């Protein structure tokens, strides 16, 4: 597709359940980013991939969060043993180059943990 695609758009999970969020970046984009956006806040950086290499995961809030991009295209953000504080919109963005480039965002996945 023309833009960044994320699925599912909405996810409701029971506390303790594992979830997997998918991101399809713009074709050919080298860089991929995951952000967490809590209600009333701006996006907060979670992790960054350049092709299949995860170059920065400093924003992941705990070891329950794991991201992968095995073939340098589609990426999955996995959250294990979800907690209520994980409820947020998870945004994926991609950009064409390395370093400072415009990031193009998907519509996000809204995760609600009950």
């Amino acid at each position, binding site marked *: 597709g023309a833009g960044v695609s994320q699925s599912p758009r909405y996810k409701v999970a029971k506390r303790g359940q594992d979830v997997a969020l998918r991101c399809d970046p713009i074709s050919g984009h080298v860089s991929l980013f995951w952000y967490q956006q809590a209600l009333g*806040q*701006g996006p907060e*950086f979670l992790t960054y991939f350049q092709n299949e290499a995860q170059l920065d995961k400093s924003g992941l809030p705990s070891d329950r969060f794991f991201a992968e991009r095995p073939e340098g295209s589609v990426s999955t953000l996995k959250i294990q043993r979800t907690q209520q504080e994980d409820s947020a919109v998870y945004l994926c963005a991609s950009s064409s180059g390395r370093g400072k480039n*415009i990031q193009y*965002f998907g519509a996000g996945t809204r995760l609600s943990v009950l």
Partner: protein
Amino acid sequence: DQQVKQNSPSLSVQEGRISILNCDYTNSMFDYFLWYKKYPAEGPTFLISISSIKDKNEDGRFTVFLNKSAKHLSLHIVPSQPGDSAVYFCAASVTQFYFGTGTSLTVIP
């Protein structure tokens, strides 16, 4: 330890007038700044950017001003249109991007 701040949660402007959205930052190492616009249930959409080597960048009705000494960034929209009603985020970067909390702009017809 919010490194990028947007102190006005909301702003209302009459159609045809100027909208000025402000952003302050604390990290003097930031060297690239962007503004994004966000409609409900959509992801942020890139609007305009500026490098720290410039103090102004213009694109149609949108102009971004950068005052490095004050660590201040502003977005001017002239003339404002009802379709500009959205949440606007500023973002700043050294390596990763840091976003402000957003300003909700309402343009009144």
